[in-house]
């Protein structure tokens, strides 16, 4: 029961964590990308659609990442080269992805509701030998799919990159004080662009983690996860492990909401509000604790 809850929590955390890691790069570069939701959605649709059409997981995933990264590059181009407002461009991506997936769903699959992709190969769960047999811990540590595991590994890699490589230093310098970065010859434009591209890749993976394991796509299936990921970025304070912990809180609240839906007969509509309410509370508590007065 408890191990089940933890297992579900980690599974629910994956898409949020992946998207949040991507968002973190843009946050570190000083230009938060609020288009995570849209990039996730676009990739969720594309990856499952292409995986279904080609019967290849890899091609499906790559197609998803391609689209989300293209969206990210478009956003970067608009906000950096054409000097459009970065928030507005992020909103544009969310709306565009929403419209595009419905539009494509109608044009390609002739349906507006839930799209089933039964031909897509299954993203199987990996049982770690021996570990899986440990009572209690086995259920917690083993039996996740490749995306779940890679989310954890990517967290560690991001940590090393951000705090122990020149790239990480340059990225943080760009975000903290762009004029200083320029004065020592670090290109603000290049780093911000790259951060957006990374956010596209990561959010794309997050989107893949939503649709591939279920083999379905529903319009708006990200359902606010991209926004919750943004809050995780803020709470994580530029540290991948911080982002991980914050994502875990939201994963747990989703798992909790799921569990109540299965176990009680409280209206599911009300239970669905739980992750948002918890996110709002977490954000407020964080703000109160950091005691920054509004300037």
């Amino acid at each position, binding site marked *: 029961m408890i191990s089940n809850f933890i297992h579900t929590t980690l599974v629910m955390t994956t898409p949020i964590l992946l998207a949040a890691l991507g968002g973190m790069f843009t946050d570190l570069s000083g230009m938060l990308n609020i288009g995570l939701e849209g990039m996730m959605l676009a990739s969720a649709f594309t990856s499952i659609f292409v995986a279904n059409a080609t019967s290849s997981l890899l091609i499906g995933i790559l197609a998803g990442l391609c689209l989300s990264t293209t969206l990210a590059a478009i956003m970067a181009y608009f906000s950096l080269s054409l000097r459009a407002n970065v928030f507005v461009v992020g909103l544009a991506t969310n709306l565009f992805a929403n419209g595009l997936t419905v539009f494509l769903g109608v044009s390609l699959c002739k349906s507006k509701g839930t799209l089933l992709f039964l031909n897509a190969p299954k993203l199987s769960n990996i049982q770690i030998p021996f570990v899986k047999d440990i009572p209690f811990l086995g259920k917690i540590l083993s039996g996740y799919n490749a995306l779940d595991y890679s989310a954890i590994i990517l967290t560690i890699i991001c940590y090393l990159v951000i705090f*122990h490589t*020149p790239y990480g*230093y340059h990225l*943080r*310098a760009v975000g*903290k*004080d762009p004029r200083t970065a320029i004065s*020592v*010859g670090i290109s603000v434009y290049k780093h911000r662009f790259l951060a957006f591209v990374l956010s596209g890749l990561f959010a794309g993976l997050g989107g893949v983690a939503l649709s591939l394991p279920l083999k379905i796509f529903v319009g708006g299936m990200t359902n606010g996860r991209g926004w919750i990921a943004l809050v995780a970025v803020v709470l994580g304070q530029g540290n991948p492990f911080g982002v991980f912990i914050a994502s875990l809180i939201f994963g747990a609240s989703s798992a909790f909401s799921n569990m109540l839906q299965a176990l009680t007969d409280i209206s599911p509509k009300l239970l669905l509000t739980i992750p948002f309410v918890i996110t709002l509370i977490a954000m407020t508590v964080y703000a109160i604790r950091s005691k920054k007065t509004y300037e």
Partner: protein
Amino acid sequence: MGVIATSKYILEMLKIRKRYEVNDVLALNDAEIRVKQGTIHALVGENGAGKTTLMKILCGIEKKDAGEIWLNGDKVDIRNPRHSFSLGIGMVHQHFRLIDDFTVAENVVLGVEITRKFGFISLRDVILAVKRLSKDSGLMIEPSLKVRELSMGQRQKVEILKLLYRGADIIVLDEPTSVLTEQEITDLFNAVRRLKAQGKTIIFISHKLKEVMEISDEITVLRKGKTVQTGKTEELNEKEIAYAMVGEEIPLEIKTSKGLSMPKRAILHVRDLHVKDRRGLVEEVRGISFDVKAGEILGIAGVAGNGQKELVEALFGIRKASSGSVFIDGKDVTSSSIRVHRENGMAYIPDDRIGEGSCPTSSIVENIIADRYYKPVLSNRSWIDISAARRMAGTLVKEYDVRTSSIYSTIGMLSGGNIQKIIIAREFSSNPKVLIICEPTWGLDIRSTKFVYDRLMEMKINRKAILLISSNLDEILDLSDRILVIYEGEIVADFNNTAVLTKAVIGEYMMGLHLKTLRREKSTTL
């Protein structure tokens, strides 16, 4: 010495022209500067003359529209900051370019890091390298400290180390002394002379002519983007330089009226004021008490960051005091809102003119009425009387000699001096009883500085109680009737500004040298 003409100068910038697209300002118009190897070359001019722009072009931060740059006899086309570094040019900016959250060592190597296996940075190597450099150059500083924790003087050392680490031969210092204390300025000058002895060339920008005369070998004067004079420092005097800068005769001495009036009645009372920092953890102001009398200028001297900002903000109601009290003319305003402070006759001119003292994207009119838009003179029930506002702004612009094409211009387009004039116009015209004024001449040129001083003297003659906070000791000594020294949130000295009081004495108190003795005196009197 038989040097051939081309190598006489290490750097020549010829007929440089630069127009800023955003506001269509012609910042440089055939500016020229010729600098000899191993000299200290001063670059002076009024606000907006183009000094910083010229140096930014040299450093590859801005692009020139026309002109030539010759380095060691070769014509160069400086493409970007990295390229400029590789040519041996480095600049310490007017506002430091350091990352507060990084350590000294990380800042010094930023952009040119040493990496080891897998491209990871070796922090140990970095710290060692910086230690060595710091020893070689005599700029001693602990490499593992966070920049956030450093004083302005220490930050400047980091900036210079940063340039030396990149192998700079030409070092540009843009208004390096404006944020430093007397002691730090002396240290800086020593360091600069040492660099010169090692063969480095230094370009030095300043508004303080005394300093320029003291440190430089040669001087170039810019006016409105043009080079109007250049020559050896020993062959010029302050008056000539000032004339070249401004283009007309201006009297350099300040008309002060120290001790002229006989202040009697205290207007501002501050009693045992304590103020905590934003997070409520550290006490930044620790029990300060003083009075300011009508017709008196009370100067508060101190190294920036010793609680001045917190003190002033608590006096004006921007921050809450944790204990103690503030009275304006007998009325307790300790925990009142800013508006109540203003209505009780307090006015405040902050040091941050753009961030706090004005709204750069609003018009002059909107800036002028900000503290009084709701009062009957300017409004009718809940509606603002636009034509009255316009009239008021027009009158004040004339009265305070603001140079602008229209009262609808946005303030951000104006020069620093003119922005300060508008802030002064608003605050002085509110007819205050108490006036708090912080770093009133920071970054201002001679002419604007003189304007500010003259107006301040007028206010004094009109029997306002004036509290002057400045890190510029000359300013404090020239203007104040009485001087308090603040150190780590406490008043450590209280002087009458008589002829015997010297900068050296105040400086010692500012550094906290007499702290112990004073404390002992306190405890014995208790």
